[in-house]
């Protein structure tokens, strides 16, 4: 791991502990030997109030590459997560997490998790990442909402 990556991640952690949005959590994982792995984080994204996603805390992992902050981290939900813009593997398809699109080195952890929370209730049907959720979202809204509510129950706080 480069020192730049490490230093920046330490700072991200400091800033997160000082101040982070309500309802979220984020912490670096532990390595086998018990030490902190700053390049792999676990975080929880609460569904926004008055949306069908409300009432649950959705778990994600954030993986920082060695080239961070030149390159964006990879954000993953559990595999098979039901959402039009999340790949079957769980990887999130979001422009601010794409190096060729809107990723900027200045984007912070806070901005990332807020971006992911935003994505939950405002999916982008123009860049589908999985078929079932996308098809339901664009063709059969009631089926879509049913599945999302079911999933919310699964991850209920």
């Amino acid at each position, binding site marked *: 791991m480069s020192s*730049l990556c490490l*230093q*920046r991640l*330490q700072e991200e952690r400091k800033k997160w502990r000082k101040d982070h949005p309500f309802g979220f959590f984020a912490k670096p994982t532990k390595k086998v030997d018990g030490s902190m792995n700053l390049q792999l984080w676990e975080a929880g994204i609460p569904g926004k109030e008055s949306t069908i996603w409300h009432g649950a805390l959705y778990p994600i992992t954030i993986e920082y590459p060695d*080239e961070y902050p*030149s390159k964006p981290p990879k954000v993953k939900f559990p595999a098979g997560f039901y959402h039009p813009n999340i790949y079957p593997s769980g990887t999130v398809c979001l422009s601010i997490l794409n190096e060729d699109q809107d990723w*900027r080195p*200045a*984007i912070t952890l806070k901005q990332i998790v807020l971006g992911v929370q935003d994505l939950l209730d405002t999916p982008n049907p123009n860049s589908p990442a999985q078929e079932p959720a996308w098809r339901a979202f664009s063709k059969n809204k009631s089926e879509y909402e049913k599945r999302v509510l079911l999933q919310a129950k699964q991850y209920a706080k």
Partner: protein
Amino acid sequence: MKKDPIDATGTNGSRSFNRDIAEIPLANSDHTIPKNNNALRNNSNQSNLSTLSGKSSNNPFRIKLELQQPTPFTPDNLAEEQEEPDSDFEIDEDELFSDDDDIFINNLDQSFNDLNISTSLNDNKIINEGGVPNLKYDCLTTNELYDRMLLRVEKIKPILDISKDDIILLMQRYNWNEEKLLESWADQREHIIEDVGLSSNNDGTNKFKNNNPFRDNSLQSRENYLCPICYEEKDCTTFKLECNHEFCTDCYQRYIKNKLSDGNIITCMSCSLALKNNDIDIIMGNNDSSNILMNSSIKSFIQKNNKAFKWCPYTDCQCIIHFKDTLYLSEFKRLHCSPFVTCKNSHKFCFSCGFESHSPADCDITNAWVKKTRNESDYLNWVLSNTKECPKCNVNIEKNGGCNHMKCSSCKYEFCWICDGPWAPHGTSYYECTQYKNEKDKDKDSNSSNDDKKLKKFTFYYRIFNEHEMSAKLDWKLGQTVSQNVYQLQEKLGLSWIEGQFLTDSLKVLNEGRTALKWSFAVAYYSDQSHNLTKIFMDNQALLSHAVESLSEMLTEKNPKILMEKKNEFFNKTGYVENRKHALLECGRDLLCKGICKPK
């Protein structure tokens, strides 16, 4: 002359083009006399063709065709006929190029012509007979292409009325397609400005139009500055754009370095405001960085326009071939001919399939052959091995140069590398071993299945193909000896450089002959073996093979004095190889055109 349908191509555009081509044979038989006069003016073509007429089939009509075709298609000729220079580009552009990219490329041509910087490398030795169009192409490097783009930027500058750096950004965003850019600029200018990052959301578009011509984007020295990227508190220089997002140059440099090879617009590290070339160079502290970025941008432009632009496939060669008129390409395919282009470093390759010069095979045959060899080469690995046992004493022999005439160093047995037979019959009669013989006479094989025979046949051709490929590689080594010889001629015999050139020329001819020979085996493999023309083709192969081998042997001579004495012999042999090669290529194309050779 004016009734000549070909003349119409120059001015009437493409719609009549295909029809005209189809009419050529008819027109020729009708207007033989005037067109012959026309053809006779072109002396170089004639001498070239007279050799061809001798060895191709003895059909007089065919020879006539050969004499007539080349002239109408030469670019000079087209230019002569064209009174108004731009007419062929503008008349029915929309019908010509439905694709936007093509329109753009067309315009590119136009501006190149306007600027008179054509570096056309047309190869005059292209087989012109049979209505094969002449090739029109440029060989460029990315830098030259970029320079041309800059000229175009200068051209549209008065229209857009913004700075050069800004236009370069716009061009990058629009893949150097100025048509699209100008169109969008007219429709949704403000949107573009934001999209490209010439102005940020917060600033509003009004600020963009040079309210502040001196951008506040220079380096600043700061003490104890905490950069929000690396979180290092230190004395450093920082950089910021109008958006006031300030970062240390260390971070900026790392960030830019990472992005240079993508060729995309590089933005501020926090928002979408674009860094211009000038900004990039300021941050990086040199002038190369923006050049690297432009280079990458041009590269991605070439990848996207791969119909008209192709990289030279040779290792480390930086040349780009820009094909002027992609409409011709389909014509090549129809005539079973391939558009071979030569780059500035004299690498010859096929513009359609990117392979080396593969005539007499066309692209389909080449493709089929290459695929087949790939599939079966694992099975035939033993064929590839470089060593062979002496047929007499079984000593392992590695062939590391020279022709196929082998002499075992242990038992002094002389044999042919390809067929393992004794050399004596090869030296006097024609080269027997280039012909595949069905092994009917061998009793032991009579029971073997059809598949087995097919494989045997393939193995045979594959082996010869490989032998020639190996030989070609060894010829390359021979080339180094030859250049040494040329040098020696100058040193020892006090000859001028030009007088030694016949050796280099011979080597070139040898290489070309070898390549043609090699690919002719792919053609032979896919040809109907029972057809008479195939037999003629094989005879032609044998003749060329014989010629190539003897030339190769001559070139191994090291003594400069003997070399000079043999100068005339070299001329004769080289000419002979050249002629045999043309004969073989013509014969091969005949096989393809008549459908006797088909990729299975």
